[in-house]
């Protein structure tokens, strides 16, 4: 990776930090919760190596929400978290709205799955909005899709559904602190090949202007 690309990755991290602030603000307003979100690192990783970089065992089943985006940029945003973290955050979000009949064999109830998809929606719309404003592009998002599978399968499904062919992804190590719970998750932005080029081309040498 060249020095120029490293500088641009720093700008992407700055945009992600702004997105994280928006996510925390949205969740605080919508659910009346004390929410803070931070992104500890951003990495550009090859799609094939994502499972190795995610801090979850490769052969573990994880929970994922993926959302395709299209317009000037095409690809998908995948939010991945452990089953424990998914249960923790959905319990908080569902306060008072839990389903009474719980299938003991189900990893997550329908309402829990729906809350995870909405979390994915909030995260994706915050990321996409900051990117669209900062890079002066138009990006639309599709409805979220829930998945509980190996991470490699979730990534594969996400890319095949969007017909996206990209070699690299941006991986944001994220931590959300909701009330007294720490929710670790990964946000993966998987642009297709052309979109990845557009992203790097549109980030000016002096950095992007992030509109508040």
């Amino acid at each position: 990776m060249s020095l120029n690309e490293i500088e641009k990755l720093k700008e992407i991290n700055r945009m992600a930090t702004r997105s994280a602030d928006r996510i925390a603000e949205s969740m605080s307003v919508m659910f009346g919760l004390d929410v803070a979100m931070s992104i500890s690192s951003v990495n550009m990783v090859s799609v094939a190596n994502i499972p190795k970089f995610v801090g979850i065992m490769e052969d573990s089943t994880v929970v994922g929400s993926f959302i395709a985006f299209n317009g000037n940029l095409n690809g998908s945003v995948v939010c991945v978290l452990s089953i424990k973290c998914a249960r923790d955050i959905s319990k908080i979000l569902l306060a008072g709205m839990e389903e009474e009949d719980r299938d003991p064999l189900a990893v997550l109830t329908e309402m829990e799955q729906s809350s995870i998809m909405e979390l994915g929606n909030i995260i994706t719309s915050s990321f996409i909005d900051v990117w669209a404003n900062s890079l002066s592009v138009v990006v639309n998002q599709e409805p979220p899709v829930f998945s509980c599978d190996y991470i490699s399968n979730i990534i594969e499904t996400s890319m095949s559904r969007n017909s996206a062919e990209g070699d690299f992804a941006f991986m944001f190590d994220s931590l959300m602190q909701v009330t007294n719970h720490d929710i670790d998750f990964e946000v993966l932005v998987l642009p297709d090949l052309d979109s990845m080029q557009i992203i790097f081309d549109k980030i000016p040498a002096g950095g992007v202007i992030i509109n508040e």
Partner: protein
Amino acid sequence: MANIMIVDDSKFMRELLKKFLVGKHEIVGEAENGLEATEKYEGLKPDIVLMDIVMPHMDGITAVRHIISAHADAKIIMCTSVGQDEKIKAAIDAGAKGYITKPFQGPNVLKEVESLL
């Protein structure tokens, strides 16, 4: 008190909106997409529809066009996410009477509903 139909592909969002409205308005029906909403509207004739924009099968804007073409006086409020300005404009052009933007807050939802009564 208004009879309200909630249209959103997210069960979680439908429940959250119901939580805001319960006791003040009557939820007469729900739909998971625009197609289901247009079919249910005929039978339910709700006073107000809360309509998500991004949904599978038929999006909210197309559903507004269908409902308004048959019921010009239908009162539809769009439920949107940030960064959907163009879609909000398209929905208003299609006949929607208002919109609320995420993150939703109970008082804002009630205020928008009551402004159409």
